[in-house]
């Protein structure tokens, strides 16, 4: 597999602790993403890193739900659940935290102390 092709794995037993700072926003890198949506997966090209990612529905929906303004983690989870068509609190906390962690590692979202500082 090319080194710049990354596939999202299930968190499994990994512990994904939510950060105490809870406002999230998209980064400038997110704006340049090129999306393809097949089956229940998103294949996404990130020009800023020249990487191709494969996101599951949860991760793709998180990015779609993050608009121009910052959201708290709880608000984002609620909106993601609505976008996925599942009821409140049905989205597993570990899966959600894992998706956020991955998006942060890729430089596509960032956490803010002050939500008014969002781009």
């Amino acid at each position, binding site marked *: *597999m090319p080194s710049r*092709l990354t596939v999202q794995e299930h968190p499994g037993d990994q512990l994904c602790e939510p950060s105490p700072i809870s406002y999230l926003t998209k980064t400038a890198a997110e704006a340049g993403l090129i999306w393809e949506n097949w089956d229940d997966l998103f294949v996404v090209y990130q020009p800023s890193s020249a990487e191709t990612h494969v996101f599951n529905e949860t991760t793709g929906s998180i990015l779609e739900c993050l608009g121009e303004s910052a959201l708290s983690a709880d608000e984002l989870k609620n909106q993601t659940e609505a976008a996925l068509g599942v009821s409140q609190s049905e989205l597993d906390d570990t899966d959600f935290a894992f998706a956020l962690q991955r998006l942060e590692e890729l430089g596509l979202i960032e956490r803010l102390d002050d939500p008014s500082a969002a781009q």
Partner: protein
Amino acid sequence: MIVGDLSRREFGTRLAGDGLRLQFGPFNLCIRSNLDSFASLAHRLYTPYPLLDEETLSDFHVEIRSPRGLHRWFRRQACFGVDGQTPFAPYTVEHAFPALEWGINWCVATRSHHLLMLHSGTVERNGQAILFPASPGDGKSTLCTALAHSGWRLLSDEFGLVRPEDGMLLPLPRLIPLKNESIEVIRRFRPEATIGPSFLDTRKGTVAHVRPPLESIRRAQEPARPRWLIFPRWVAGAPFALEAMPKSQAFLMVASNAFNYDVLDETAFRLVSEIVRSCDCYSLVYSDLNEAIPALDELCNTMAG
């Protein structure tokens, strides 16, 4: 003018002199050799390939020759060279022909980044192409050889060359190096196929080269549009199975089988996406060409109809 228009003597003189200029699909090559055994076989197997005049610029200057210096007196060896460099250890002189053929493929795979290069067999019929992306040993060369001798046009048994400007597939109908059991499989399946001698104990086992049908070589400048992505796997004794594959999985398998996906970055992503979007995607498991070829014919006829 084609190689067959040259006498064996003139062919050998060009190889040993300024070089023989040949056209293989989108690539112009200048080939040199001072090995008589190589010249004899090349004259026979390259017969229908177009010759270029001496003024034509060559993409690669390749050679297969005995080593220079004292070495040549101790061992009978053949060295592959490209543009004055010798990237590989010498081969035994008996393996000079497959060494040059591999060397040319290596040049294409490492130096043709103006194209997206998928590791894939490719055949065409009625203007629509099947791509067979696969790893070595999955049977794509055997399948391509069988299809090329069953009414399909061979584009390549090894490369899916995608032109970035329009996503069309460029033909590269070079000799097909069959390995080990595949040689006998094709001899039985199409006894009329032109197959060169078997080279024993090469770095890839026993190898014999099949010359593509003349029609494929004559139409080497006609691109084709991708229509099907079929991921083949030869499994001894397995029942035939052709099953739809999710496009997300197809994308990953095509991208991870490409020679230069990482090099072309966004261009590669857009091209692979377009291919996956426009193709029907299948996985194929086969053990018997007499089952596989009619099934692929039927797939093509159904979709065309």
